[in-house]
Structure formats: structure tokens, C-alpha cells
């Protein structure tokens, strides 16, 4: 009897793996294999000059990235951290203010406004970025320069210097990311029990006090996972910076790099595969450390 149960259990888990096999196989090919292969290449000097006859050179790619200051990696890393911080702060503040305004009781057209504000999220991302690039920032027919001209100023090359490219990329990124954050905040605020506010108002609490002692503590646990996800996507943002400033053959002259565009450029423009792989692995380690630090406790018990 006992033997039978054991046998059945053994068959059971084989069965589970069998049904999961196609999914796990695909993940193995497209997710796991590239990481292992990249880790291997990062130890070699593979590049255009050493396409087949590459050899293992140990950790010197890592040393170049981390200890040679003009390699560009540390600069890109700093820019990426700054980029993530700036974007997150502006996004959270804007989303909070807009969601608070949307939740004012007597606003009747709330639904219409919400739908209109969802458009940047619903549009295909690359299309929006290209529309911004050509429609807004283009030196000849971009809307911004048309307005500048109307005001009697000279046309500005918005994407050509580091600082102004950073600002432009931030504007576009916030435009793209705000709807999601707004929706999350709005949902969180609607879940707060209205009677808290009523009794607080009766006690004479000001709007600021109500926000500080009721709204913020109530929504914090609800929005936390979404905020962490957004930190990841902002840190890993590639499309905005790449499409706006450094498409092949259409570089705008800004030297702005995040670590992702930096790794991409080293792999596909200067074809320095070994070095680029080392950077990829460093990025991966950073992401893993960050996600272990902020992993929600529930996930551990799943």
C-alpha cells in the first residue's frame, strides 16, 4: 500500500515536469542559455578582430569596466542611477497629485479624463517615441521649434547636448510611464475607506494633514509592488534613449548613455563582444541584488 503511494507520487512529479517541459524548454533556450553564454563570452576577448580565434582572458573585461575611469561604464552607471531617481521622483509626485485631484468627490467627468490620460500607455511605445522625435524635437518641423520661431527665437537642436537630451528623454519617459502609475495610485486611493476622511475633517484636520496621515500610509503598501516594477523598467529603459538620440546613422550628437545603451553600443556598433558581455553580466548582478533586496515577503512563501 505504502509502496504504491510512493510510486504514484514519483509518477506524479514526472507528470508535472512533462506538462511543463515545453515552457521550461523555451525559457531555457531564450532566457537561461543567453545568460550562461554571455557569462562565458565575458571572459574572452571576442570582437570583430577575434571572431573565431578568441581566447579566454580571465576577468580583464570586468577590470576595464570597473576600474578604468574613461572606459565610460562608470559614467553610464551614474547617469543611469540619476535617470532612475529623477524619473521616479517626478513620476510619483505627478501621479500622486493627479490621482488626488481625480478623486475629488464632485468631479463628474472623471472617467473621460482618465480615458484620455491613458492614451500614452495604450499607444505602441516605439511609435510614440518616434512621434516625439520627429513631431516635437525635430529641428526643422518639430512643433517645439515652430513655437520657438513664433516667439522670435532661433531653432534649437534639442537632442544634441547631453543635458538637454537628458531632459528631453525624461519628458518622453514620464509621458510614457505616467498613465500606469496614475492608474495604480488612483486604484489605491479609491480603496481607502471614505469615513476616515470624514472623521478627520470633523476633527479639523487640514488637507495636508489628511494626506500625510491617511492617504500616504494607506496607499503605500498597495502601490509598493508597482513602484518596484517601475524602478526596474526605468533602470532598464532602452527604447527612449536609443530611439531619440542614437539610432544608427541618425546620432544626434549627445553623449548620453545609460548602461543598457552603452552595452548595446559596445556589442553592435563597435563589436566588442567580450567587453559588452562583461557589462551585461555586471548589469545582471546589479538587478539581482536589487530584486533580492526588495523581494516581497509573500513571494518567498509561494
Amino acid at each position: 500500500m505504502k509502496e504504491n503511494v510512493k510510486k504514484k507520487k514519483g509518477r506524479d512529479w514526472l507528470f508535472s515536469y512533462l506538462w511543463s517541459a515545453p515552457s521550461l524548454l523555451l525559457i531555457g533556450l531564450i532566457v537561461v542559455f543567453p545568460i550562461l553564454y554571455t557569462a562565458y563570452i565575458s571572459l574572452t576577448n571576442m570582437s570583430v578582430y577575434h571572431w573565431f580565434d578568441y581566447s579566454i582572458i580571465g576577468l580583464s573585461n570586468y577590470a576595464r569596466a570597473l576600474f578604468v575611469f574613461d572606459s565610460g561604464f562608470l559614467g553610464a552607471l551614474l547617469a543611469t542611477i540619476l535617470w532612475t531617481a529623477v524619473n521616479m521622483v517626478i513620476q510619483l509626485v505627478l501621479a500622486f497629485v493627479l490621482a488626488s485631484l481625480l478623486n475629488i468627490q464632485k468631479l463628474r467627468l472623471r472617467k473621460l479624463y482618465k480615458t484620455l490620460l491613458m492614451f500614452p500607455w495604450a499607444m505602441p511605445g516605439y511609435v510614440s517615441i518616434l512621434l516625439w522625435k520627429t513631431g516635437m524635437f525635430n529641428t526643422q518641423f518639430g512643433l517645439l521649434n515652430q513655437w520657438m520661431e513664433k516667439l522670435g527665437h532661433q531653432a534649437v537642436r534639442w537632442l544634441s547636448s547631453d543635458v538637454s537630451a537628458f531632459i528631453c528623454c525624461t519628458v518622453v519617459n514620464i509621458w510614457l510611464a505616467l498613465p500606469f502609475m496614475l492608474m495604480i495610485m488612483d486604484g489605491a486611493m479609491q480603496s481607502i475607506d471614505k469615513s476616515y476622511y470624514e472623521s478627520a475633517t470633523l476633527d479639523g484636520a487640514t488637507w495636508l494633514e489628511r494626506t500625510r496621515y491617511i492617504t500616504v500610509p494607506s496607499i503605500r503598501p498597495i502601490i509598493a509592488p508597482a513602484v518596484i516594477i517601475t524602478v526596474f523598467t526605468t533602470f532598464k529603459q532602452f527604447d527612449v534613449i536609443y530611439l531619440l538620440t542614437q539610432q544608427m546613422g541618425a546620432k544626434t550628437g549627445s553623449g548620453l548613455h545609460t548602461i543598457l545603451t552603452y552595452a548595446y553600443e559596445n556589442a553592435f556598433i563597435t563589436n566588442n563582444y567580450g567587453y559588452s558581455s562583461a557589462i551585461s553580466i555586471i548589469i545582471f548582478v546589479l538587478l539581482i541584488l536589487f530584486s533580492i533586496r526588495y523581494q516581497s515577503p509573500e513571494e518567498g512563501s509561494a
Partner: protein
Amino acid sequence: MSRKKLREGLGLTALNLLFILICFVTLIPILYALSVSLNASNRLLSSDFSFIPKSFTLDNYLAVFTGEDILTWLKNSIFLAGATVALSLLVAIPAAYCFSRRRFPGRRLILRWLVLLNSFPAILSMFAVYRLLRPLGLINHRLGLLIIYTGTMAVFSLWNMKGYFDTIPVDIEEAAQIDGAGPVQVVTKIVLPLARPSIIVTALMVLIYVWNEYIYATTFMTGEENYTLAAGLYALQATEMSGSWPVFAAAAITVSVPVLIIFFLCQKYMTSGLTAGGVKG
């Protein structure tokens, strides 16, 4: 009393005006593209530009559909998106069900590691994936992209649906089993209908991902006739059409409309299907 009402009314009007302004500012890039694509007299450099075109034309849209290979690209996109969604659901549903309902050695370890491994940016995998697919003859082949897209979205699909399956009470399934339903019947007749929101959202996310992906699509496929819409549009703006911005605007609007329709049709599923599974884990 009436003074208080008046003040409230004024405040509300100000708030509404503020929101109208915010919505307008938000929509400027889209409205501008729409207006340029419909404008017959394209003197864009003239200073009397307004958001409402003075004379309408559909010429730019006509140019999009006749002048370029856009119908071929549309066909490629639809085929690839459909195939990827079908394959994703086909492989992810049984896996998600097993990981949600059954207990087997390695289960927790795999679940935990999949999330960590999935944080590796897909764009950095491109070189390795190229080296993997080339010996298999899958470069410049739709099957190659199908495998890449399904694999890239596989962890998300698995986790998202597993999370939703977790919220469905096991009692229902046990009751059905007592009534004599086999394991396959339990899944197809009971679990899948209950899990509809998460299946829809998963399919939607995969669809939107494939529809919008341009880097793999341009790097792994050569020859314009093999491009997807995203790849084609990207190539267009990178090369010839940078001079013809009205036609590009028309193409951009055309490509976006299906995505907009799908997004707003399925918006009500977005919250329930995503938060129940993905976020809570």
C-alpha cells in the same frame, strides 16, 4: 450658504479647466501627428499652423497603403502575433497549472529563479540568441522570431497565470473530480473558464509585445518583405521617410489604431488580470 456654493462651483470649474488643459497637453504629440497626416496643404513651416487642418485629405493614408509594403508587413505582424499568442498559451497554461496545483521537487526553486533570471534585459541576450539560432538555420526565418518571442514572454505568462490559478479554490476541482471528471476535463471545463481574465490579459500582453517589438525583428530578418509592421515602420523612419513626415505620421496612426482599440476594449480586465496574478505572486 449660497456664497459657499458659488465658491465650490468656481473651484470645480477651475479643476475641470485644469484637467482639460492637462489632457490637451498630454495628447499634443498624438493630435499633432493626426493633424499633419490629414492636412492637405503641408506648408508645415508656415507660421499659421493650427491643430485643425484647413483642408482635409486622405492622400497620406492612401500613400501608406499603396506606396509601401505595409500590407505585407501587416500580414506578417498578424501571423506572427497570432502564432506567438497561440504557442504562448499552449505551453504556459499546462505549466502554470502544474506549478500552481501540484507539489514536486524543484518547484519553488524554479519559480524563484525564473523571476531572477527574467530580469536579464532581453536586448542584452540578442547576441547569444543569434549565435544559438544561426546554426539551426532559424535566422531570417519566422520560426526563429516565434521561438524568441514566446521564450521572452514565457516567464511572464507562467507567473501571471500561476498567480491567478492560485486564487481559484481547489474545492471546486475536487467536487468535479468526485463527480467523475478526469484531470483534463477539470482543467478545460472548470479552471480555464474561471481563469478567463488572466488568460485574456496574458494573451494581450504577448500580442502587444509582438506588435511593438522592432529590434529583434529588424536584426534577425533581412529583406523588407519579411518585416513586421513595427520593423517596417522603424526602417521607414530611419531611411527614406524622414523627409516625408506627413506620410510617416499617417503610418504611425494606422499602426496604433488596432492597439488602441484592443487596449480600451480590454481595459476592464487589465486591473483584475494583472494584479491578481503578477503583483501578489
